[in-house]
């Protein structure tokens, strides 16, 4: 089954989707997560290394998908590994994407009810959000890509604006000494950043929809690079402004950074509302694409209509999002997802790539 030709996306759109998927909850929590593990101001190095690893993993996945033109991961691993093992791996991916969608929706609820809507029941927040996303998804991948193309530039412009406003309380001393405790803390900080780089795996699916699948490597590299740069700016600004010790005590350090300065003279003296606006849009995009990927996988795995998958799985994601009892459990859930991602995204595509090469070699 070759995918519908009319629903194709350009290389730029693929890059934008990768970027949008990556930018999610991580923006708000990354400085704390990385600082907790590393304990030194060098976490920006950890983020850089993490980003490089993510790009490497992305390249592997892009190459893998490129060698199966027109097929998504759910389709080609069936032909590579047979119906049962392939199906099992597909199912793992699908469950993973669903968990991710649930996690994102829950993180959205937490932040929204903390900063914007005290007292509004979380089910109302979640349901409204899920319907808006569903409306977009029923249009297929192309409208999704187009909407993301609107969201990403808005995000980048507003985000950079808000971050650079933070220069008023930025102190370079907070980032010193560089490598004061050697390189080991940096490495320790790499793994916890994994959750922030969840999202590159979407290229496994996107390549099948690209007009020029040959350029999928380019798309994933550019898409990830944009995110790595934004993350680097975030970590440097937040740690520079709040110091490592300050970051550790804050649940959402990036938001706290933005709340901690006021610039008189402009109409809005406080910028957290702007940050929240773009953050909600980012969560929307991450959630939409992971939900879409999961539904697409399910429909391809079981050969059922995509639209009915989209509708049928709403309650599933709703229930997943309600499982974590509190914020600590939610973050633990996030860590679990990050760890899963390392195996699912790091190891399986590599194995599949080797298998593809080997099969091609034995055939030719």
């Amino acid at each position, binding site marked *: 089954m070759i995918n519908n030709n009319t629903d194709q996306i350009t290389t730029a759109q693929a890059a934008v989707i990768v970027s949008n998927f990556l930018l999610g909850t991580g923006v708000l929590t990354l400085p704390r997560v990385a600082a907790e593990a590393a304990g030194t101001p060098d976490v920006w190095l950890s983020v850089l290394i993490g980003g490089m690893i993510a790009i490497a993993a992305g390249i592997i996945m892009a190459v893998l998908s490129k060698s199966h033109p027109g097929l998504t991961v759910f389709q080609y691993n069936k032909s590579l590994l047979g119906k049962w093992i392939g199906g099992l791996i597909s199912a793992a991916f699908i469950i993973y994407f669903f968990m991710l969608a649930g996690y994102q929706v829950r993180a959205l609820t937490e932040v929204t009810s903390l900063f914007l809507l005290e007292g509004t029941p979380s089910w109302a927040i979640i349901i409204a959000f899920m319907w808006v996303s569903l409306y977009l998804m029923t*249009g297929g991948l192309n409208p999704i890509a187009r*909407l993301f*193309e609107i969201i990403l530039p808005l995000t980048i412009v507003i985000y950079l604006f808000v971050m650079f406003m933070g220069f008023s309380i930025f102190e370079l001393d907070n980032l010193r000494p560089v490598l004061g405790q050697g390189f080991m803390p940096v490495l320790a900080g790499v793994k916890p950043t994994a959750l922030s780089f969840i999202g590159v795996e979407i290229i496994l699916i996107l390549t099948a929809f690209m007009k020029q699948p040959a350029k999928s490597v380019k798309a994933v590299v550019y898409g990830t690079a944009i995110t790595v740069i934004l993350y680097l700016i975030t970590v440097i600004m937040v740690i520079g402004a709040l110091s490592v010790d300050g970051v550790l005590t804050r649940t959402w350090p990036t938001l706290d950074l933005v709340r901690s300065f006021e610039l008189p003279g402009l109409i809005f003296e406080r910028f957290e509302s702007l940050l929240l606006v773009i953050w909600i*849009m980012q969560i929307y995009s991450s959630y939409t694409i992971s939900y879409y990927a999961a539904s697409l996988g399910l429909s391809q795995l079981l050969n059922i209509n995509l639209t009915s998958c989209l509708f049928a799985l709403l309650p599933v994601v709703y229930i997943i999002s309600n499982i974590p009892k509190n914020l600590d459990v939610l973050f633990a859930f996030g860590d679990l997802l990050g760890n899963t991602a390392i195996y699912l995204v790091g190891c399986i595509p590599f194995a599949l790539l080797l298998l593809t090469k080997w099969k091609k070699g034995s055939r030719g």
Partner: protein
Amino acid sequence: MNDNLLENLSLIQEKTKYYSDVVVRPFALGDSGKAGAIIFVNGLADRELIDQHILKALMSIHVDQASITKNYIKNQVLSVSQLTEASSIDEFIPKVLLGSTALVIDGFSEALVIGTAKVKSRNIEEPISEALVRGPRAGFNETLSDNTALLRRHGENASLAFMSIQVGERAKKDLIIAYIMDIADPDLVEEVRRRVLKIDIDNVMESGYVEQLIEDNYLSPFPQVQSTERPDRVIAALMEGRVAILLDGTPFALIAPVTFSMLLQSPEDYYERWMAGTLLRLLRFFAALISLLTPAMYVSFISFHPGLIPTKLAISIVGARVGVPFTSLVEALIMEVAIEILREAGLRLPKPIGPAMGIVGGLIIGEAAVQAGIVSPILVIVVAITAISSFAIPQYSAGISLRMLRFVPMFCAAAFGMYGVILFFLMLCAHVVKLKSFGVPYASPAVPYRLSDWKDFFFRMPMFMMKQRPEMLHTKNQKRKRN
């Protein structure tokens, strides 16, 4: 028809007995002894033409009966340019009803149908709904031939094509699809033609009927076909590779496909120098955003997050609202609905009273409402800014879309505050990116990214830089210059 005049006339009388405006005028063909009659509709046919070139010529024939043949009449007597033959009464009566004059002569079994239709058309005037400071003052009128002539007269262009189609089952009307042969995408022209041919309705009153019958999505609040009274706008659209539809009897031409960016463009952007054009266009985008979201922002800040606005401002807003008995949503709804009613009433009023009404409504009611403590003064400012901003949208139909839409985020804001407004924005974006107008994504050129088209989107780049037609329209000839 047979060759006996009297029998023919009684047949004609029988067939036209329900048309009291049909005139049958018998006469003698000079001194030849032959008789004839003309049939025409009072008011539709040109009396002067009939008197001077038909009756006078026929009545002053000085030849004998035998030499009066059909060819003689056609070639030597009637000095009119449009002349056809009809072999039956049923064939010529529809033509007579459109203004032609039928000539029946004793001894001829065929009638001559002479084009005498005289359409009373309005002069070419300045379009009222799309006034410009700079630009041509000509607007379309209700006569199709005048309108096509306006397009033809724009400049010598052998590739400007007019495709004529009749629409309406009972009242057949001429409709013309205009495009430029070596620019417009043939698939687009074919798609427009296909949709126009599918129109199945007994009467097409105005081009608005056509618009609604050929649009892509009837549930969308956005116009998917642009209507305009300005020939220059139509020409510009044709030159970009779009297709125009002109209908007889209306000064509003349609342009398809529409993309979102067109709604906020004005021909003046191109007539003024590029800096002014760019800034005005950016201003309009800003105005559109204000008119869409300001009331919603007011509601969400008042009801949910006074903490997000600067403290001093928050204090003064809250202070001004002391004593207002309604929630911010009800308060905003009262004022917004009031201003919509005012605007609607202002449209219906005779011209001299309109402005007075605006003053009475806007100033006095607003002032009194504040004095009475029903609404807060800040809200009056918000509503006024919103209304003024919505007037900055150059297209009436696009303005209506925004006027309708701005009530939706108000409710979203009342339910979810800023979060609701963001969801509304996402919903709106999702709708726009899903929408297509004749196969062209509505959101283009914004998305999918077509950087070369962005020269004429938020910005209006200097003329020398805009040498390409919009990429999104897949034109046959991409360059706007000598080949």
